[in-house]
Structure formats: structure tokens, C-alpha cells
């Protein structure tokens, strides 16, 4: 047991932080770029890769000790009365999967970024932020205590804010960053309340202890559903579920690798991880679980409908991410925690691949993001096309690619789970799966097939991306293709048991599997039929459904609704009550009142001092006489 043996988990988290500190100081502090680009690249990629290798090593030692969780004490943060707050790390099957994904996909995206961002003037700052994000994300997944998790939770929010507003010279980008941060803060309030409640009842925030407490014979004296709902509010913020999903589509203002890493593969799955990690609570909170399932499936459905009509390549993927996160929460809601994590992993592969592919497309078209100005790109950027197509097939749920396996299991448990599964949930989810296939193939066709609608000027510059980008795309495409073989739901079963399906339903499994394949293929064929044919076909379809199309293009006008229902009344209250009444009248008014009273009093008293000695002497006399009279009267 050397240092790495004792503090291996700590080192995993700290390695990206070291990268951040080196790059952060050398390329942003002390007046600008102090290190060459190749140096920044080496530092930024080496530390995440080292963290990945270390994770793999620790994963094997976990396997060698029969998956007994590794607990590592790093530091005692505070000791208040009898409760101590420790920075401990915890490594079990669930953590292992999450850490491998974060460091693995994270490293891949770092390498991709070295190609994508190489011409940016703030290249060093970008890589430093990415490393910082990785540090906080690792803290989030490795922490044993909810407190450490929360530090990571807030830290990834910070990194997300910094990276969404990376090109902050444009006000819209800065506003998008702010929106993400503020929306997350609403969720965090729920998270904190849940955490307080748990600590008050159980006296600890260590998540394995909390799970054990809820699984013991005597249940803790706290409503599991209340805690579950409060923590889920936190999860809706971070993982972009109804009603707090609005920040994620706007978060696409950030550079594309950020969208891939933070807003698709890792950070947004933090809510899923949290719920799965605290499955002990949710197993005893059927009400909270129902809420999660319904919100999940509703989010999946609505986001998918919005994705049908978006014209920005990244917005389509953003709504698709929201929709897929909805699927994950559906799985959590029906008690299939392992399956949700399985979908997190496959989604990380194919959605990272899609986003990075989209980045490659944008890169080759010199910054164009509108899919109406693309088309026929498959011959010009073949590697991007090929990888994008693989990931599209994967997300559409066509076997045998990764997306099929995880999504099919989610659909199966949505139907058959004894913990709240129902045909209605399955029906909505299946419809969503159909739409997923439709909008993804619509995207694929509009970007890579048909006639070129690219601007002439741009057309000359179309070029395949450098090897650092395409290499990563190929790796992720391979993972999207074969990732389904991992079968993580069953791998996690000893830790996160899957719901026991009643025997009466088991005969349906094959039927439902066939139905979901039919739906995926059906959606695909429909999209190819509509968008593969002459353009008039899609246009006439758009005309027929003009009204719903407007509703969808406007994203159900949720932003406007929030603006009118929440933002404007709040602004009115701040303007009139807090500023007008509280600040101007009460605080300023009191102070100004004291001031003007002083001025008035001094005006009156000033008149007495008229310079006449007699007057002064008279006053002295009157004073002396009255003092005498007063003392006499009291004697």
C-alpha cells in the first residue's frame, strides 16, 4: 500500500485540478499567455488521461476484492458537537462506472478540444476550465458524503457557467450562462433542504449509511417521500427535467465540446447518479418515485416533440438530451436504477459522439449551425458522416447498437415494473422512442443527404476535421455501436437490484421488444420518406400542421410563460416594493429624514446666535436664574 494505494481516489480527483492550476495560472494569470499551445495541450490532456488510467487501476483492484466498496478517508473538514464532516471517498460498482465514464469520455473530449479550439485566442483558459470541470465532476461522483457531492455539484455548475459563457463578449452567451446558473440555484434549494432533513434525522450525510438506515428494519423518523421529492427538485435543476429544463437548450451557446462533455455526457447525468446513489430512500418512497417517473416520461415526450422542428443542429441535440434524460428518470421512477445508469453510459457514448460530430460539421462549415443551410455533406466529410450515422442509429434504438439495449430495458420496466410500471408510461415512452428515431434521422438526412444548401462562400472551405477530432469520433462511434454489450443493469444488480417482474407479464417481453424495434425502424423510415424525397414533401407536411408546428417552434412558449409568470412579477416586486418602498422610502427616507431634521433644527438654533452680546448675557442670566429657582424649589 503506497501513497497511491491509500489515496488513489483522492489522486483521481486531484489530477485534473493540478492541470487546471498549471494551465489556469500560466495562460490566464500574470498578464496573459505565458505558455505555448503545445504545452497547454500536453498539460490539459495528460492529467485527465492519468486520472483515467488510475481509475482503471483502482477498478481492477475493486474487482480483485470482490467489489467490496473502497472507502478512503482524506480529511476531516469540520467537527461540530458529535457530528463530523469528513471528506471521504467511496468507490463501488456505481462509482466505478461513473468515474470511468467521466474520466474516459472526459479525456476523449479534451483531446477533441485540442483540435476544435486550437485557433481560439483563449485556448489556455478553455482547457483550464475543462480540467476544473473534471475535478468537480470527479468530486461529485467519488464523494461518500452528500456534502462532498454537493461541493462537486455546485462546482460543476460553476464550470458549466464559465464554459457556457466562454465567449462572453457576446451578451447572449453570457445571459445563457447566467440562466443556467440561476435555474440550477432553484433546484439546489430543494437539494439543500433534503440534505438538512437527512442530517437532522440521521445525523450523517454519508450516502452508504443513509441507504443502510432506510433499508434497516426500523425506518428513520422522516418521510422518505419528502426527502425524495426535495432531492429530486435538485435533480430536475441539474439534469434538466420539467420544470427546470429551460436552461439546457440555451446552454448550447457554449463551445461544442462543452455541450458534449457537460451538457450531454456527464454533468446533466448528475441528477440520475444522485437518485441511483440514494436508491435506498427512493425504494421506500413510492410517491416520490411515481412523481419521478411521470416527470421523466413527460420531459422525454415534450422535449422530443420540440426536437422535431428545431433548425439549429445543436438545439436538436440539446432537446434530444433533455428527452433522453427523461428516459433515465423514467427508469429511476419505476425502480430500475441500474438500467438508468446503463442508459447514462450508452447515452454518454452516442450523445458525445453526436455533439462532437455536430462540432465537426460546424467546424467544417466555418461556424454554420443552421441545418437548412447544410445538406449533401456525406461525401465531403466522410468520417464525420460515418460516425454521426452510427451514433444516430444508436440513439434511435435500432439493434444491435448501444441505444437499443438500454432504451429497450427502460421501456420494458416502464411497462412491467411492479414499482409503478404501467402501460400508459410505456405507451408515452414508446411514442417518444418513435419520435426520437424520426427527429434524429431528420437531422442526419438534412445535414448529410439531399441537395447541398450550403452558402457558396462556405462551400469552398469545407474540409474534414483534423485527426485529433476524427480519432475521438471514431472511438466514440465504436463505443456507441458495441456499448450495449456492457449490460450494466445486470452488472449493477448486486448493488442496485432490478425490479422483480411478475411472472404473468414475462411472456410479453419479446413482444414489447419487437414493438420497440418496429417503432424505431418505423420512425427512421418515416423520416427518410419525408426528408429523403423531394423538398416539397416536407414543405407540404409543414403546411398541413402549421399550427402545432408554430407551437413546437416556439418551444411551447415555456420561456415566455416563465418570463410573464415569474420573472416579470418578481421584477415588479423588486422594482416597486423592494426598491421603491423598501430601499427608497424606508431606508433612504429614514436617513434623509434624520438629515433634514438636523438641518431644520440647526436653522432654528442658528437664529439664536445673532452676535449680540446682550442677548447672550441675557440667556446666561435666564439660565442661572432658572437653575437657582429650580434648585430652590427642590430643596
Amino acid at each position: 500500500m503506497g501513497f497511491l494505494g491509500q489515496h488513489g481516489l483522492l489522486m483521481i480527483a486531484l489530477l485534473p485540478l493540478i492541470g487546471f492550476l498549471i494551465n489556469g495560472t500560466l495562460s490566464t494569470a500574470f498578464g496573459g499567455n505565458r505558455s505555448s499551445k503545445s504545452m497547454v495541450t500536453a498539460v490539459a490532456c495528460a492529467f485527465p488521461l492519468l486520472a483515467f488510467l488510475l481509475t482503471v487501476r483502482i477498478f481492477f483492484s475493486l474487482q480483485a476484492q470482490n467489489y467490496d466498496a473502497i472507502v478512503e478517508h482524506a480529511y476531516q473538514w469540520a467537527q461540530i458537537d458529535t457530528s463530523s464532516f469528513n471528506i471521504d471517498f467511496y468507490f463501488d460498482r456505481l462509482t466505478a462506472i461513473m468515474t470511468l465514464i467521466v474520466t474516459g469520455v472526459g479525456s476523449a473530449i479534451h483531446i477533441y478540444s485540442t483540435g476544435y479550439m486550437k485557433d481560439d485566442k483563449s485556448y489556455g483558459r478553455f482547457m483550464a476550465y475543462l480540467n476544473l470541470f473534471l475535478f468537480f465532476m470527479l468530486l461529485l461522483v467519488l464523494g461518500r458524503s452528500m456534502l462532498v457531492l454537493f461541493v462537486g455539484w455546485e462546482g460543476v455548475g460553476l464550470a458549466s457557467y464559465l464554459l457556457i459563457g466562454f465567449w462572453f463578449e457576446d451578451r447572449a452567451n453570457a445571459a445563457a450562462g447566467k440562466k443556467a446558473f440561476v435555474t440550477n440555484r432553484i433546484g439546489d434549494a430543494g437539494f439543500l433542504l433534503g440534505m438538512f432533513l437527512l442530517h437532522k434525522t440521521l445525523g450523517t450525510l454519508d450516502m452508504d449509511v443513509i441507504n443502510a438506515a432506510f433499508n434497516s428494519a426500523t425506518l428513520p423518523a422522516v418521510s422518505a417521500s419528502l426527502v425524495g421529492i426535495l432531492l429530486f427538485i435538485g435533480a430536475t435543476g441539474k439534469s434538466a427535467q420539467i420544470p427546470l429544463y429551460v436552461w439546457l437548450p440555451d446552454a448550447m451557446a457554449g463551445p461544442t465540446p462543452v455541450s458534449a462533455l457537460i451538457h450531454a455526457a456527464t454533468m446533466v447525468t448528475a441528477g440520475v447518479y444522485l437518485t441511483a446513489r440514494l436508491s435506498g430512500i427512493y425504494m421506500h418512497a413510492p410517491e416520490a418515485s411515481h412523481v419521478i417517473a411521470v416527470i421523466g416520461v413527460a420531459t422525454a415526450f415534450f422535449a422530443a416533440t420540440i426536437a422535431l422542428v428545431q433548425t439549429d443542429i445543436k438545439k436538436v441535440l440539446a432537446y434530444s438530451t433533455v428527452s433522453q434524460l427523461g428516459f433515465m428518470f423514467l427508469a429511476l421512477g419505476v425502480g430500475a436504477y441500474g438500467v438508468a445508469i446503463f442508459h447514462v453510459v450508452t447515452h454518454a457514448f452516442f450523445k458525445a459522439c453526436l455533439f462532437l460530430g455536430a462540432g465537426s460539421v460546424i467546424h467544417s462549415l466555418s461556424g454554420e449551425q443552421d441545418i437548412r443551410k447544410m445538406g449533401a455533406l456525406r461525401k465531403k466529410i466522410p468520417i464525420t458522416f460515418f460516425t454521426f450515422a452510427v451514433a444516430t442509429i444508436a440513439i434511435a434504438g435500432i439493434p444491435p447498437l448501444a441505444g437499443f439495449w438500454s432504451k429497450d430495458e427502460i421501456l420494458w420496466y416502464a411497462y412491467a415494473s411492479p414499482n409503478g410500471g404501467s402501460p400508459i408510461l410505456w405507451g408515452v415512452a414508446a411514442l417518444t422512442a418513435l419520435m426520437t428515431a424520426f427527429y434524429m434521422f431528420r437531422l442526419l438526412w438534412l445535414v448529410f443527404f439531399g441537395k447541398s444548401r450550403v452558402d457558396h462562400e462556405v462551400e469552398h472551405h469545407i474540409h474534414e476535421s483534423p485527426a485529433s477530432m476524427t480519432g475521438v469520433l471514431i472511438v466514440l462511434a465504436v463505443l456507441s455501436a458495441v456499448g450495449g454489450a456492457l449490460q450494466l443493469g445486470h452488472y449493477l444488480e448486486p448493488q442496485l437490484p432490478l425490479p422483480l417482474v411478475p411472472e404473468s407479464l414475462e411472456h410479453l417481453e419479446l413482444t414489447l421488444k419487437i414493438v420497440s424495434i418496429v417503432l424505431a425502424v418505423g420512425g427512421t423510415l418515416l423520416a427518410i420518406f419525408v426528408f429523403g424525397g423531394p423538398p416539397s414533401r416536407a414543405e407540404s407536411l409543414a403546411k398541413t400542421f402549421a399550427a402545432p408546428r408554430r407551437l413546437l417552434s416556439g418551444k411551447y412558449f415555456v420561456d415566455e410563460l416563465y418570463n410573464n409568470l415569474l420573472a416579470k412579477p418578481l421584477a415588479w416586486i423588486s422594482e416597486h416594493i423592494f426598491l421603491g418602498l423598501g430601499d427608497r422610502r424606508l431606508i433612504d427616507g429614514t436617513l434623509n429624514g434624520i438629515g433634514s431634521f438636523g438641518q431644520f433644527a440647526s436653522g432654528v438654533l442658528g437664529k439664536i446666535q445673532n452676535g449680540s452680546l446682550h442677548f447672550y448675557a441675557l440667556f446666561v442670566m435666564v439660565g442661572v436664574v432658572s437653575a437657582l429657582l429650580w434648585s430652590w424649589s427642590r430643596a
Partner: protein
Amino acid sequence: MDKQHQLLLWLSIALFSLGLLGVVIRRNALVMLMCMELMLNGVNLSLVTFMNQNGQAAGGVLVFLVFVVATAEIAIAIPIVLLLVKQKRSLDVDAYSDLKG
């Protein structure tokens, strides 16, 4: 208290009151200064009377202190009045009311 001392005290009150009245009523700076001396001497008289009555020396000491202070006061006040008169050729204190703070 015997009659002699009582008379002396009444005299001292009369002196003090006359002086005070003079300071308040008269406008001539020199007269006002003299009235102030009158007030001081009224007080001195009362001090001496009490000393005589109680047979204690402390009152006498205080009287000498008052003499010294009064002398110093006049030594400063008269030059000030002289300088003021040099400015405006007037002994009326109201002429100098623009000297207020």
C-alpha cells in the same frame, strides 16, 4: 446668622445683580467690563463674609485667586476693546455683532 453678616450678604447680592443688569442692559463695552468687575467683587464680598463667619481661610485664598484672574482678564480685555475701537471707532458692542461664529 447675625445681622451684620446678613447685611453684607444682601450687599453682595445687590452688587452682583447690578453688575449682571449692567452687562445685559448697557451697550458700552467699557461699562460692560466694569459691570463684570462689579459682579466679581459681589462674589468676593460673599466669600469674605462667609470666611469671616466660619473662621476658615479657604474663602480668602479663593478671593485672591479671583483677583488674579480678574487682573489677567482686564489685561487682555482692554487691549481687545482698544483694537476693536481702532477698527470701527465705536464702543457699542452691537456694532461688532458681525463677529459671530
